[in-house]
């Protein structure tokens, strides 16, 4: 597949694009944005039944489609293109990947089939109020009393945490620090002592929540105390997934800017005929193509478990962060005054770009990760 998609990949992309076109136009996006739950359960069920997308990268033995990172990223790219409002990233990417990496066989048999079928929705509670998505940033402690675990503390920026059926929580054992003592847990969404509040976010298409744990009983997921590696693997795939989702949105914005530049006439000619616009759009095309390539390459590397997988995942995330924002800003600019209105769709993508820029770590952090892992 090196450096290209197969015909099957392109066919798959077509299916997803068609579904998104029929079920996630910007009118729908605007409607769902206004709701607390943020998605349409009928559309979600349809997505699950007709395309099996929630399980696209879950192995067949756990009820999934048995595909890998490349297919997952194609689906995400198309979802990003349409700003599809659904708990897909939170449940099918973050939580599912965490279960795949951290869970025992028993855990996977118990939890994955419902996720694959779209029957249950999960969320991953990892970052805390400081907004760090790594082991070092975890302060929440899991206390063991009489063989049972309870969680106390707060998790923030939890994608679809307020509406999920269950939460995958990453905490640490008492008196541990850094990569030591990291443990995954599952907690039911309606667990006693769990308080879930929707955060007020600039991107209303992505529902983030803050979860407060007050002696909440939690079930360990996988081996207690040695979850750091599973966390790292989960994050690396999530970086790639997010990068591809972002590039779907960036590409859509470029097309929108181009379309407007060709249509809008000022001074007797299309504004796209002015050289400043032509050059701006040419530069944007270059940025988008290069960043897309990097996201695609990262998906390939993840699929092959290549040596450069970790470095390239962060490379792709950083580059997508910068590029998506660059295109978003330029797209508003190219639209002129109307680009700044609520009515124009550009701000919907701008807000997704801004939010994604820092979700799972900002570009500077990822560039640092890239360098640390380059040529390893």
């Amino acid at each position, binding site marked *: 597949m090196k450096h290209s998609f197969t015909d099957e990949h392109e066919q798959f992309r077509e299916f997803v694009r068609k579904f998104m076109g029929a079920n996630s136009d910007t009118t729908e996006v605007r409607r769902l944005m206004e709701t607390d739950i943020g998605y349409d359960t009928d559309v979600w069920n349809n997505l699950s039944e007709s395309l099996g997308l929630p399980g696209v990268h879950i192995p067949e033995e756990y009820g999934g489609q048995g595909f890998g990172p490349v297919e997952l990223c194609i689906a995400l790219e198309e979802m990003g293109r349409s700003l599809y409002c659904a708990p897909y990233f939170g449940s099918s990417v973050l939580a599912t990947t965490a279960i795949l990496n951290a869970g025992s066989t028993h855990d996977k048999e118990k939890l994955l089939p419902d996720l694959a079928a779209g029957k249950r929705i999960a969320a991953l509670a990892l970052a805390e109020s400081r907004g760090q998505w790594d082991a070092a940033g975890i302060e929440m402690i899991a206390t063991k009393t009489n063989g049972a675990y309870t969680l106390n503390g707060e998790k923030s920026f939890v994608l679809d945490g307020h509406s999920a059926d269950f939460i995958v929580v990453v905490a640490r054992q008492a008196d541990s620090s850094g990569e030591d003592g990291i443990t995954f847990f599952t907690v039911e969404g309606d667990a006693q002592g769990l308080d879930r509040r929707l955060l007020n976010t600039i991107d209303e298409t992505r529902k983030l929540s803050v979860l407060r744990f007050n002696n909440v009983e939690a079930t360990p997921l996988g081996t207690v105390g040695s979850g750091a590696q599973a966390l790292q693997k989960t994050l690396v795939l999530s970086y790639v997934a997010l990068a591809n989702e972002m590039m779907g949105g960036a590409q859509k914005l470029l097309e929108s800017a181009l379309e407007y530049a*060709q249509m809008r006439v000022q001074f007797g000619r299309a504004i796209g005929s002015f050289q400043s616009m*032509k050059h701006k*759009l040419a530069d944007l095309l270059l940025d988008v193509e*290069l960043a897309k390539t*990097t996201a695609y*390459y990262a998906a390939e590397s993840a699929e092959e478990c290549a040596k450069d997988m970790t470095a390239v995942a962060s490379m792709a995330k950083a580059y997508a962060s910068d590029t998506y924002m660059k295109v978003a800003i330029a797209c508003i600019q190219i639209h002129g005054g109307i680009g700044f209105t609520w009515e124009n769709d550009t701000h919907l993508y701008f807000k997704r770009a801004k939010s994604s820029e820092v979700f799972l770590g900002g570009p500077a952090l990822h*560039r640092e990760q890239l360098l640390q892992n380059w040529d390893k």
Partner: protein
Amino acid sequence: MTDISEESIRSEVKGWLEENWDADLSLVEWRNKLAESGWGNPTWPKDWFGRALPSKLASAVQDEISQFGAIGTADSGVRMLAAATLLEHATNFQKNKFIRGIVTGKDTWCQLFSEPGSGSDLAGVTTRADLKGDNWIINGQKVWTTSAHHAQYGLLLARTDWDVPKHQGMSFFVLDLLQPGVEVHPLRQMNGHASFNEVFLADAIIPKDMLVGKLGGGWQVAMTTLSHERRLADGMRGIWGSAAKKAKGRIFEELAAEVKVALEPYKWYPQRAGRVDIMIKRAEETGAINDQVVRQEVAKALTIHQASQWTALRARQAQKLGRPPGPEGSLGKLAASNVARAAAQVHTLISGADSMLKGEDGPMNGIIAEILLSVPAGSIAGGTDEIQRNIISERVLGLPKEPRTDTTGPFKDVPRNIVS
């Protein structure tokens, strides 16, 4: 019409080489033999030192010559551009006079297109060709001419009619450089090198029968040359056969000398590209890698460099799979320009105050200085970034072409440099 198999072609070439390869010949003698056999340029017409083979088989032939340890046709410098242009537009008289000298490497050629007054605006040539009796008298100046200082012949684009619109008034000639009316001067660059020349033409003489193509049809001929230039841009790669590289003997010494001369103008090109390859090593050696800002800038430059490489592979792969060309194939030059500039900035960050020094006093014995002073050429030579953006926005994005005021009406009325 039988389909020739690659296998049979390969064995035929091999057989011929076994019979005819002789390392004791001079380079020109060997290439004469090669030319007459048609194996030197197998896609060319049979009448002109070729075998009319499809291009797919040409690489197989080249591969066999390479593997055998023999030497191929003279294809360095402007030779193949000249040959391609003449094969398409020249008279038999002209082909008879020039093609053999090209393929044997006996003659060196140069391309006389760019002028001080027409760079990006290539069609704006003002070097004039005036017919006087049986000769064209040439007056004007050409610039950025590679190898003019040792060339026998030049592909000359000059203006023959000033009363017609711009693109219709040019004609194409073969100029004999070895005459009093032609003066070649090296052109010194900001990085100290003088890889190119200025060519001053003062009543230079071109016999009537050296007009190539139609009178007034010079632009079309020049387009042929340029289309091949694009195609052969990577031509510097295939000069040596891998086996020939290691061989000893007079013929290989001659080849080495030829290659050295051909590559001499480009020895600073790796520095022009920014030397991303030594960025991390330099940062590590100097300890700059521990600086947070340096790390970020290294990561940024590394990212766009890798992304450009992978994008080129994407384009190539799409081509191989027979897929329609996407935008990724037109972005290479602009991407490379950005990479080079980013890398130059990183090298400056790493080298700090030493960025002020060159030669033996400078870091890496002057390589860093050469990077800093060569990178500005990349966004200009061979098509400026601005022209690239025009091309991308027009041909890839379909945006309207620039409004033109210079293409209709007599060329003599088109404005030139405004001097107050």
